[in-house]
């Protein structure tokens, strides 16, 4: 969902840039204070690298159109939402500046959509799903899939909202919302599948590194002669 230059007018582009900058700044603080640890830090780098790679592989979703992974929830579940915002911001920025994928004046918009909305709305859905699922590590992957699925059409709707504010062409909003949501629900299925595969493989290998699995792992028991008896 990389927005090119020209889709949104200048004031809206500037507005999204200002909002994104503020959120990213807050996420820098939050990530450093509450999410990044020496142990999990390498995973943050890996997540960003993987999201960049996966975003290159567009998959067909219907006659004539394709989708690609957003990766916001994948990142949030693995390394925490604030760190995920940072990862996605780096990815989207490199894409715009080096690969002309997403406009430069639209960078604030793309960070807002993919780095903020996709991450935080999807993470919220992930946390809600966790509330109703059994308290097992496997639930983390399932909940991640739910969050991932929700994040895509919600991000599409956020774009529609921005278009309502500063879209370049007079497109009927109800129509834009319907068409965008429709396609991005389908793309959301692909997002969910990839997210579940990725999260479950990390949960299987190193559940202790997964931010979203905190509190769901069996507590380690310190066995001493007294406890073992």
């Amino acid at each position, binding site marked *: 969902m*990389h*927005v*090119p*230059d020209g889709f949104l007018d200048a004031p809206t582009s500037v507005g999204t840039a200002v909002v994104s900058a503020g959120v990213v700044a807050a996420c*820098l603080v939050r*990530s*450093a*204070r*509450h999410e*990044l*640890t*020496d*142990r999990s*830090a*390498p*995973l*943050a*780098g*890996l997540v*960003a*690298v*993987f999201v*960049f*790679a*996966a975003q*290159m*592989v*567009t*998959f*067909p*979703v219907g006659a*004539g*159109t*394709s989708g690609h992974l957003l990766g916001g929830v994948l990142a949030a579940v693995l390394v925490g939402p604030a760190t995920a915002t940072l990862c996605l911001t*780096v990815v989207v920025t*490199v894409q*715009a*500046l*080096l*690969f*002309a*994928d997403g*406009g*430069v*004046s639209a960078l604030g918009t793309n960070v807002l959509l993919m780095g903020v909305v996709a991450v935080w709305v999807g993470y919220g859905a992930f946390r809600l799903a966790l509330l109703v699922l059994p308290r097992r590590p496997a639930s983390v992957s399932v909940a991640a899939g739910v969050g991932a699925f929700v994040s895509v059409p919600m991000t*599409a709707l956020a*774009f529609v909202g921005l278009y309502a504010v500063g*879209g*370049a*062409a007079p*497109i009927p909003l109800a*129509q*834009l919302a319907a*068409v*965008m949501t429709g*396609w991005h629900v389908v*793309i959301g299925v692909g997002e969910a599948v990839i997210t579940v595969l990725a999260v479950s493989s*990390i949960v299987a*290998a*190193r559940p202790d590194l997964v931010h979203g699995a905190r509190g769901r792992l069996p507590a380690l028991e310190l066995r001493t002669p007294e406890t073992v008896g």
Partner: protein
Amino acid sequence: MSTRRLVVLGLVVSALVAGVLSFYASGHPDGLTFVAETLGFADTERSSATSGSPLAGYTVSGVADARLSGGLAGLVGLAVVGLLMAGLVLLLRRRAPRSED
């Protein structure tokens, strides 16, 4: 599995995805572009200020072979993202380190 092993494995998978799998990516326009074309606002798009980049469009200009061009572009992107993240994480850890939990 040690963290190092996990990261190396993940990087290898990512390199394969960006370097090889990307060649088989669908050529169809993505959802947003498709909607823009369908609803008629696609022509409001202006080309990016960086569209002259040698890596624009995920190809390496000057490399004729499509597979090699795309694969190289993907790997360059991986390296840049990886380096930026490494720098960012180092900076953040140094500024506000917290204890292991």
